[in-house]
């Protein structure tokens, strides 16, 4: 009986793993076939040597960093304040942060184009820099569900109210409390949200394309439309970047401040 259930468990595990791994292996295998008759990394070399790859990737990394900064500045104080003073508003805020999952990016970006065109009172789209700022804002909105949930989960693991009061009674103001007590204790959660934001920004296509910015997403699409092996190589590179982010979350979580209540 016990052996039978173990067999089925392994079978399900095997089927699941195959389902995820097989397409990836096939893509990887295909990406190595650029040279006729033998495996090579030519497709990867071609991708890395392409100046457009370097430009668009660098652009997206910079945009991702600004997106993360904006997200942290927006989400950490909000989630903290909701938990501390306005717990009744939590369902409302959770609903608002879920909206980007429900509203397609194309709707958001068309809204931006209409709202912030060159004739509007806030003409973000009148300059390239302004459009970059709008793209960062748009990405921060897209990453909001992940960032908010990550930070909120982090805040749930600490006694926000008592720690805040303990710091207040020792003379600390709000900036000190958030910077020295709250943020360090939810740092891993913030980093989780940050890496998820990074992964979203790196692969995003719709907003960057419609706002006509030289981002990595539109580059991926362009390569996919015009080459055979490079898109597979880029898919593997994108996976590697995402996995790298996830591994960093795992590694950094080891350095998280341990709670007195949950020492392990």
């Amino acid at each position, binding site marked *: 009986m016990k052996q039978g259930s173990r067999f089925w468990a392994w079978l399900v595990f095997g089927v699941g793993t195959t389902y995820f791994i097989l397409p990836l292996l096939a893509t990887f295998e295909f990406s190595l076939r650029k040279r006729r008759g033998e495996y090579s990394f030519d497709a990867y070399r071609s991708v890395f040597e392409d100046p457009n790859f370097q430009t668009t990737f660098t652009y997206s990394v910079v945009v991702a960093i600004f997106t993360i900064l904006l997200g942290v500045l927006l989400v950490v104080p909000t989630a903290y304040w909701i938990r501390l003073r306005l717990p009744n508003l939590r369902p409302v805020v959770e609903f608002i942060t879920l909206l980007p999952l429900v509203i397609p990016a194309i709707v958001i970006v068309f809204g931006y184009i209409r709202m912030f065109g060159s004739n509007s009172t806030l003409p973000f789209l009148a300059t390239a820099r302004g459009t970059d700022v709008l793209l960062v804002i748009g990405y921060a909105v897209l990453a909001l569900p992940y960032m908010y949930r990550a930070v909120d989960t982090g805040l749930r693991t*600490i*006694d926000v109210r*008592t*720690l805040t*009061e*303990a*710091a*207040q*009674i*020792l*003379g*600390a*103001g709000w900036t*000190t409390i958030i910077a*020295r*007590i709250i943020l*360090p*204790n939810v740092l891993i959660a913030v980093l989780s949200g940050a890496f998820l934001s990074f992964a979203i920004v790196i692969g995003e296509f719709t907003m960057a394309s419609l706002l006509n910015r030289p981002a990595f997403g539109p580059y991926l699409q362009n390569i996919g439309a015009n080459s055979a092996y490079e898109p597979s190589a880029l898919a593997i590179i994108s996976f590697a970047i995402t996995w790298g982010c996830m591994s960093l979350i795992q590694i950094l979580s080891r350095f998280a*401040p*341990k*709670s*007195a209540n949950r*020492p392990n």
Partner: protein
Amino acid sequence: MADPFLSIQHVRKSFGATTVVEDFSLDVEPGEFVSFLGPSGCGKTTVLRMVAGFEEPSAGKIVVAGKDITRLKPNQRNVGMVFQAYALFPNLTVAQNIAFGLKVAGMPKADADRRVAEMLDIIKLPQMGDRYPYQLSGGQQQRIALARAIAPKPKLLLLDEPLSALDAKVRVSLREEIRSIQKKLGITTIFVTHDQEEALSISDRIAVMYGGKAEQVGTPFEIYNRPATKFVANFVGTLNVLEGTVTDAASGMVRVNSQEVALKGKLNGSKSGDTLSLALRPEAISLGRQPGRDSSLAGEISEVHFLGSVIRVRVGIGGSTVSLDTFNSPATPPPAVGEKAEISFASSDMLVLH
């Protein structure tokens, strides 16, 4: 008489339609250790939080050292506080936790380090500076929390049920330590607890609270021996309550279960025929007639519990049961259940509850 150090004046606190503290007033002398004692929901923590600045009174004012602090923010009050849940900052070491308030106040690092070392010595954990809170036991964490609270030399120390989360043995040793540190530093302290033994053992005065009001404020001796209200008498210590009827108000005679007891000078205002609640502490009752105990009641032993050094005996008197403690004597066997017995007490020890 000198001005009180802390003066809580006619403070009231309401949350919506619910009033949790009603017209609470208390003056605390410099260096005094005052406990707020009461059951859950009596408003004791709310009063403490108003003194700390975490809650704003709906009415009344709070004055510390002659200064009205009612509307000041918590970080402007120079008050130290120890929380029930320790509230040590998990990301900081013990030394950094203690130094937190000093750093916020802008104390130079060398001075802060000296003060931290001094605090660690006071709480007898000199080697623990580099540890993190999760590496310490509950008792050690609460000691650190105490050190952190007193490191910036606050004017007032507030202790919000600091011992509730600790096991019984640690509670006793830590409460003695808290009292000794408080005496040594001479810091005015408010201690909130629902544990009467804790309050009785370490306080200069106790404010017994119930329903958002102070039922009685007095020394532990007064609170225990001369409870002002029925609630205080019932809440503090163990009490035997007997119903009695005044038979002769002039001579103080009261009938308890068909037996007469004389309570001279204790019936203030009662008329013959009135029903009274009479209370006796277990230690005020002896089994059998004893010298100095002028009153007695006859009954039957209903329960005997051997507790080691003490034997707790319950004696049925009519429809009531009276508990009393006798010391265990190896030469004398404990009384048996069902035996006829007489209990005696000094009528002056009998409390008439109003």
